[in-house]
Every structure is written in structure tokens, then in C-alpha cells.
């Protein structure tokens, strides 16, 4: 049984192929990451899941079937850019959106109080949305997504505009939802923000699936492809290293496929003026993995060409 099944969907806008043959499944009770850089096709994929866009090809099923009006009430959706009426007051807006999801006004009002308190927005309930800060609007939008207690949450870039404290709060809430057995599909371009939360991910680039599966397994598969190095000297342009990043005195090296870390070590030791203080096989971040996968694909394409 799947909560969402996306099978070979494609969508073009004129000559632009926004999504090409993307497939993945989302299971009940998991937090699923829809990851990729800006413009990768994540939002288009979400819009196809929610029937805002119709795919040119492929199929989407939700709760084991087509999206019906009844099923819409089981879904909470937060678009990337805040979907709230700017010129209306916060409380009536949130209550209106909740009633459209099948909640009666009294229940919506009762539930709203605790959410506003949790997001520290209770003093702004009679403020117009446009008078709230970007972060507050983001929190208000999250309340609109959660108020009717949906079984499936689809949140597009949920951490955009949030400060670290509120980012922590939203992560806690998503974790609570997972514990309650809710399904969460979360899109993000800043992969480090979601990798700890997600059970499974699909990584999209240029509208195509580039990686799909359990986060732990993916990381295990790509372990050894990244090194953490500390020391003095030049660690760039090493053979077999796709990318070398220097941050706070530490070098993060992303290795090409099949490159042995011991060969890299030997190459470092052969360099003049290098003093090695730390050499560690790192667990790669999703960003590292993404870079590896994309560069590998580019190399393969170049070879094929």
C-alpha cells in the first residue's frame, strides 16, 4: 500500500521539459524528501501529485487511487510561496481555509488557539497577513496546512524564511507527525536541512530522477567517496577528486566513482610542502552525494558524446 505513487510522469511547458520520467513511491508514516537544486522540477512534481498540473505522461495515485474531492480533505499542502490572503486578518483566513478542508468553524477555532500559541502567533491573530514578517507568514502557512489534521502533508520548502529557532520548531513538528503515523512529503533545495528528517528521498536534477531510496542506504553506498582532511598545504587538483571544499580549516573532498581513498592518500603524501594532520573517510552529506551523482552523469554524457 502506498500513500503516493508517481509513475513515469513528465511535464513540459512549451519547449521546456520541466519533469521527465520521474517515478517514486511514498509509504504511509514516512517522511519523504523531494530534493534537488532550484529549478530541478520539484514544485512541478508536487503540483502534478496534487492535480494542480496534469502530467503530459505517466500516472499519479494518492491513497491507492485517483485524487478525489474526499481525498483532498486528507491532504495538507503548503506551497513554496506563501498561499495566504495578504489583505485579510490572520485568524479568519486560517479558519476559512480549515473549513474548506471539511472542518467546522467551532473545531477550527478551538484547534487554532493551540497552534497559534505553539508558533508564537497568538498576538497577531487579528493582524493582516501582509503586516506579518516573512517568517511569521511561513509559520501561519504551516498552521493552515496542519489545522485540519491531514493524513498526508505536502510541504514545499518548509524552512524558507525561518530563523534557526523556528526551523528547529518545524523539524520537531514534522518528527511528531511521523510518530503519529502521518505521511510527509517535503521538498527542499538545501539538502542538509532535511537529510536527518527523511526516511527516504528522491533526488531530482533537470527534471529527472538521479537518486532514489533510503537515506541511510544511499549514504552507506556513497561512503568512501568523501574524505575529511585537515593539515597545511594545497589539497586541490588531486587525481580522482571531483570537488575539494575548504571550510574552517577543514577540507572536504568528494571522490569519483571507483577512486580508492588510499590512492588519494598516497597522492597527498607525494606532494611537497604538505603536512597532514587528519585524514578520515567521511560519511557523505546528501549534497556531496548529489554533486557526485550529477558530475558522474555529466562525465558519462561527455564520454558517450
Amino acid at each position: 500500500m502506498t500513500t503516493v505513487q508517481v509513475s513515469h510522469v513528465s511535464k513540459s511547458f512549451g519547449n521546456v521539459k520541466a519533469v521527465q520520467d520521474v517515478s517514486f513511491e511514498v509509504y504511509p508514516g514516512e517522511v519523504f524528501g523531494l530534493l534537488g537544486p532550484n529549478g530541478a522540477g520539484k514544485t512541478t512534481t508536487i503540483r502534478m501529485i496534487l492535480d494542480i498540473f496534469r502530467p503530459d505522461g505517466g500516472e499519479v495515485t494518492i491513497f491507492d487511487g485517483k485524487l478525489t474531492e474526499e481525498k483532498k480533505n486528507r491532504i495538507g499542502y503548503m506551497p513554496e510561496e506563501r498561499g495566504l490572503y495578504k489583505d485579510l486578518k490572520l485568524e479568519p483566513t486560517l479558519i476559512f481555509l480549515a473549513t474548506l478542508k471539511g472542518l467546522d468553524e467551532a473545531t477550527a477555532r478551538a484547534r487554532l488557539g493551540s497552534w497559534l500559541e505553539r508558533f508564537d502567533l497568538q498576538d497577531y491573530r487579528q493582524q493582516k497577513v501582509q503586516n506579518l514578517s516573512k517568517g511569521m507568514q511561513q509559520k501561519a502557512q504551516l498552521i493552515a496546512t496542519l489545522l485540519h489534521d491531514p493524513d498526508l502533508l505536502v510541504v514545499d520548502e518548509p524552512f524558507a524564511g525561518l530563523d534557526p529557532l523556528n526551523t528547529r520548531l518545524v523539524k520537531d513538528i514534522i518528527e511528531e507527525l511521523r510518530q503519529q503515523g502521518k505521511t510527509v512529503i517535503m521538498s527542499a533545495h538545501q539538502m542538509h536541512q532535511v537529510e536527518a528528517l527523511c526516511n527516504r528521498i528522491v533526488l531530482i536534477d533537470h527534471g529527472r530522477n538521479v537518486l532514489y531510496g533510503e537515506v541511510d542506504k544511499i549514504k552507506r553506498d556513497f561512503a568512501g567517496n568523501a574524505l575529511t582532511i585537515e593539515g597545511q598545504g594545497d589539497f586541490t587538483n588531486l587525481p580522482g577528486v571531483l570537488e575539494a571544499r575548504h571550510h574552517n580549516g577543514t577540507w572536504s573532498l568528494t571522490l569519483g566513482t571507483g577512486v580508492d581513498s588510499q590512492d588519494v592518500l598516497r597522492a597527498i603524501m607525494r606532494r611537497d610542502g604538505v603536512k597532514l594532520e587528519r585524514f578520515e573517510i567521511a560519511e557523505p552529506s546528501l549534497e556531496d552525494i548529489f554533486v557526485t551523482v550529477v558530475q558522474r552523469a555529466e562525465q558519462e554524457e561527455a564520454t558517450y558524446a
Partner: protein
Amino acid sequence: MHSLWLIAKHEYLKIVQKKSFLVGTLWMPAMIIIVMVVSILATLGQRGSLPLGYVDYTGLLRDTVTLPSGEDGRAPVAIQALPDEDAARAALEAGEIQAYYVVPADYVQSGNVQLVYLNRRPGEVAQDDFRSFLCANLLVEHPADIQQRMVEGASITFRSSDGSQEIESGNVLDFMVPYITTFFFIFAVMNSGSYMLQAITDEKENRTIEVLATSVRPGELIGGKAVGLMSVGLTQLGIWLLTGVLALFVASFFMTEVQEVRIPWALLGVVALFFLPAYALTAGMMTAVGGMVSDLRQGQQITGILNMFFVLPLFFITLIMAKPNSPLIVALTLFPTTAFVTITMRWAVTTVPLWQLGLSWVLLVASATASVRVATRIFRLGMLHYGQSLRVKTLITLLRTERP
């Protein structure tokens, strides 16, 4: 269906709470009240509380001649004879009279009379009373009914050139209401059209539409907006109508002309029948435009052209007055966007045949229903092409090929 009412309620409250709506709706009653108060004050001040004096050098005038009540039903101003101009001046300066007339010896030949006052000239009604007094004195040998007729003047009936419409002089509303209604309708349609367009484009721009589309059917969304908008129109119309009726009611205590006014219920019935579908047609057209364009400015350019289809009969006003049953005017009566304005304007000068009213209404309701349905599809297709404007050619292709 429940969602449709929720959206209708939401749209209604959203619009009626806007300052622009309050200003747009209340300026009309405010104007009516101002005009009414000014008219009443003017009427009350016209006669003045002091008598009018006169110095008669003809020897024809007598105080004993009784003046009939004025047109407003109130007692005419008291008219007092004075022996000479010195006495008249003294009375005027003492504040015993508001002014005095000097009627020269050759008045019957020349018709000249002199009015003397201090700072404030007597009002028109007081002057009319003195004219009536002169008239009654000249006709003193004639029977009372002749005197009465001369003082009151003729009762004129206005008849249209084809003889199909007659309006009595006392019932100006018969003539005025169609034009006032036309003006209200055009104002209301343009107002509501811009509200609808703004609502749709705002929702597209701030992405609320995505949240709504994942909550309700497009039909419920558009239907709800149309119902909300029609309720706004009815509220506006209701406020204007109520203020108009109240103004007439209050004015009737002060102005007898108003007492003679008959409310043209038949026309108001037709207005009530045509108003709602005309509103729905507007709502559908504006939704379609909102669905096609990517921002409000672009939409306003298109709606400027669409509004022309509603005000088109105004360009034919001369023809409507002269030949209200000509083929072109009948065509405008039947054409859905021009039906309302044409019918109300024709109402002032002719009797619109029942078959034309019926057919026009059926066509209007059918086109309103179709416009809301097509608008729903265009709106849906516009969403599929998010952030891009839909060209008419693309739209037609999509309407043929995309599944609803």
C-alpha cells in the same frame, strides 16, 4: 456544495469589508440624502414666514381674493395691501414684511411690476404666490374653477413618438428610473467586475489559488465567487433602493410633487429579474479573463474592452429615444451583455414587448450559465499554465483537447 457557500460567504465578506466598497456603495445614498435635504430646505425657505406687501396703483387688486393652495399643498404666503410706498418701506424696514411689490397704474398694459426687498430676495414659491394673486385678481369675474385652472396651469402628458408609452407630468419617476437604473447597473457591473478580476489575479499571484485548488473543485470555487459577487451586487442595489425609497418617503412630507410619484414596480421587477443573471455573466467573463492573464494590469486592459459590451447601448441613446423598436435596438435587447441597459432605457420611451423580455431573459440566463461554466474551464486551464498568459488561440485549442 458546502464549499461553494463557504467561498461565497468569504468572497462577500472580503469585498464588503473593503473601504473601496463602502465608499463606492455609500456615496450614492449620501448624494441622495444631500440632494433631498437641500431640496427640502430650499422648498421650506422658498415661501418665507413673513407676508408680502404690495402697493397697488391700478385699483384692481383686492386682499379679499383667496388664493388656492400652492402645488406643494401648503398655504400660500400672506399678502398684505399697503397704502403707499413710504408705508411699504417702513413696514419692510420694521421687519413686518419680507418684501413688497409696486404695481404701477399701467400694469394691465405693460405687465411691469417692481419688487422691493432689503437683503434677501423672496423665494421662487413666494413670488409664484404673488403671481397667482395677480392672476386671481385679474380673473375675479370668472368662475372659481377657471381661476384654479389658470393658477395651476396645464397637466401635460408625455407620449412617445410611436404612442406606446405615456408619462404624466406628475410622475417623473416613470421617466427617470430607467436612466437611474442604467447608471447604477453600469456602475455596479464595472465595480464588481474589477473586484472579481482582482480576486482571481491576487489569488494567482499570491499562490492562494494552489491551496484552494487542492481543497475544492474548480466549479465550486468559481461558482462560490460568482454567488459572492452577486450577493455583493444585491447588497449594493438594496442599499441604493432602500435609500431611494426612504428619501422619497421623507421628501413626501415636504414636497407634494413627491406624493404624486408612483414607484414603477413593473420596471423594478424586470430589473430584479435581469440583474442577477447579468451579474453572473459579468462574474463569468471576469473569471475567464482572470484565468487567462498572469497579472492584474493585463486583465484590466482586457476588461476595459469587455465593459464596452455592457455600455454599448449608451452610444445608441438617440436611436433608442427616437425609434425604440427598431431592429438594431431589438437586437441589443436580445444580446446578453447589452440586454439590461437596452431594456431599461427602452422602458422610458416604449413598452417592451413581452416576447422580447422573455427571450432576452432566457438568452441572458443561458449565456450567464455558459459563461460561468466556460470560465471554470478556462480558470482550470489557466492554472495548468501557471505564471503564463494564455493566448486566445492556445486557449481554444486547449478547450477542445484538455479533459475537464
